[in-house]
């Protein structure tokens, strides 16, 4: 067990390092924008309506908040300090709303959409892939190209087409948003049904694309496993097919877990754009609005939250993986 603790600690320090790198990029890159974005923005957002004195006040408050008058590294520490205090700053475009508040409103929607969609897509995709590998024949011959095609349709293209066909053309589903504007959010049945109605299309479009990619990966892994020496040996010992299939499924599944960890970033990225297509009120749409209005604090807040969530999910996957795969455990033993 102490070995396992060490494994966790080791993984944790890696993710911490990755997080700091993400933090640094988050801090650095928007600062490389040429010119003085703040003055441009302040004048843009408050144009005409207020006195130049008021503009100057807002301008100064931004300068102070970001410590823009201080040396570079002081700015960085101010930034890191703020982030660790849980303060993501103030939005330019929705001044004086804090980025924290905007994120707190958006994040639950994103988690609610993406987490179940990715998990469902992952499970169904793996089952289909394994099935195609065992069954071969027609099932495989049809499933494989279909999965490959779905996998090559980008998330957002599928989303747009689903939205057009089922939302606009057939009118089966609403054409956007997380819930109807006419309803007030509450824990009432009509509202929940309404939310699920809005949920369906974005959910299914993420699920479908995830299934495609996962089925292909699993099929390959399972075919590979089916051709390994231990399968031949088990067969030569007269072991039944069911038992052998259970071995193969398990062993092919394990790399798929790491596969999930690695492709999670891409999946989340794709799903964020899916949100934009459906106007779903999550981080993706927030980010999109931030980009359109050059709201740097909002952009930074969104990318940071995305990076943090993906890193955390990866860390959890790593721990789960370490718990269940003896190949890793044995490697730890060998390594020590």
């Amino acid at each position, binding site marked *: 067990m102490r070995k396992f603790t060490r494994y966790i600690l080791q993984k944790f320090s890696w993710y911490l390092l990755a997080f700091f790198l993400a933090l640094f990029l988050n801090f650095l890159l928007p600062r490389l924008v040429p010119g003085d974005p703040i003055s441009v923005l302040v004048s843009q957002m408050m144009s005409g309506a207020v006195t130049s004195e008021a503009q100057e006040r807002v301008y100064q408050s931004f300068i102070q908040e970001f410590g823009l008058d201080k040396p570079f590294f002081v700015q960085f520490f101010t930034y890191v300090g703020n982030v660790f205090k849980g303060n993501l700053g103030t939005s330019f475009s929705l001044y004086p709303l804090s980025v924290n508040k905007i994120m707190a409103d958006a994040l639950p929607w994103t988690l609610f959409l993406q987490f179940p969609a990715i998990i469902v897509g992952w499970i169904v995709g793996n089952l289909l892939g394994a099935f195609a590998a065992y069954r071969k024949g027609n099932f495989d011959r049809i499933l494989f190209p279909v999965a490959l095609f779905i996998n090559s349709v980008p998330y957002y293209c599928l989303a747009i087409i689903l939205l*057009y066909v089922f939302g606009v053309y057939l009118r089966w589903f609403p054409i956007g948003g997380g819930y109807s504007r006419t309803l007030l959010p509450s824990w009432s049945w009509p509202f929940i049904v309404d939310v699920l109605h809005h949920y369906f299309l974005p959910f299914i479009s993420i699920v479908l694309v995830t299934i495609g990619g996962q089925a292909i990966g699993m099929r390959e892994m399972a075919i590979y496993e089916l051709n390994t020496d231990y399968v031949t040996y088990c067969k030569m010992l007269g072991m039944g097919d069911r038992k052998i299939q259970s071995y193969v499924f398990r062993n092919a599944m394990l790399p798929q877990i790491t596969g999930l960890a690695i492709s999670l970033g891409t999946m989340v*990225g794709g799903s964020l754009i899916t949100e934009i297509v459906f106007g779903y009120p999550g981080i993706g749409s927030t980010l999109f609005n931030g980009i359109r209005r050059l709201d740097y604090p909002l952009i930074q807040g969104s990318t940071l939250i995305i990076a943090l969530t993906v890193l955390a999910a990866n860390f959890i996957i790593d721990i789960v993986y370490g718990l269940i795969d003896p190949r890793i455990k044995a490697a730890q033993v060998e390594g020590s």
Partner: protein
Amino acid sequence: METLKLLFKSPKFIAGLGIFVFLFLTAFIYPAVVDKNPFEMVGLMYEAPSSRYILGTDNFGRDVFVELIHGMKTSLIIGLFAGVIATAIGVTIGLFAGYKGGTVDNILNSITNIFLVIPPFVILILITVSLRSRSLAVMGLVLGITSWPWTARAVRAQSMSLRGREHVDIARLNGASVVEIIIREIMPYILSYIFMAFVLQVASGILNEAGISMLGLGPSNVVSLGTMLSWALLFESVRSGAWWAFVPPAITIALITFSLYFMNTGMDEIFNPRLRS
């Protein structure tokens, strides 16, 4: 030569290559022959497909068909450029890490792993947001430098497995330098593998271009498949039922990616026969 012949026996590879070459030639020959400006506003907003504009017009009244061809060309250029850059970086890092082992490997591998877990999408957004102008070359470069870790990781594993081979030992005993060994004794053995990785990187370059364009961070002053989609979305073509504004670019992206994936699968079956039952 032998492997090339084998490749041309794979129906998947042939089909993939066929589609890709067709799209590629269309994208590069059509604009050279028919001199039409994709930015020219020729009609009204969202005119339906007709004999005049076979794919109708977009939100600015521009000819979607002309845009589509030019967009395809842009996307292919960006994708290929990103693919070259990502493959070059990934292969270099992967080869060195795998061949050298030890500390060099530890450092390079750690860097790779860190860049694998930070979503490339995030880095992509941060970089493009801070660029004032995003030319084709810049876009390709940025897309390339955010997607190399996959290749590095895969190539490292291959290079590691070759390190102990006899011919590599011989070259080392003959006093060949590290770079010489890597180029002469290791790279040739994984060329097919590198090519496969390149094909996948081109696909991912095209996909990512479209993705980042959807966020409004696409290449400036050109039409690409991604910017077409992004305009279509921004100007409510979906909700107003103007399917011709978004279906053509969406299908084209899918078709390009599909052809590349199909090529890759065909090659995989030829080069890794154990995958086949």
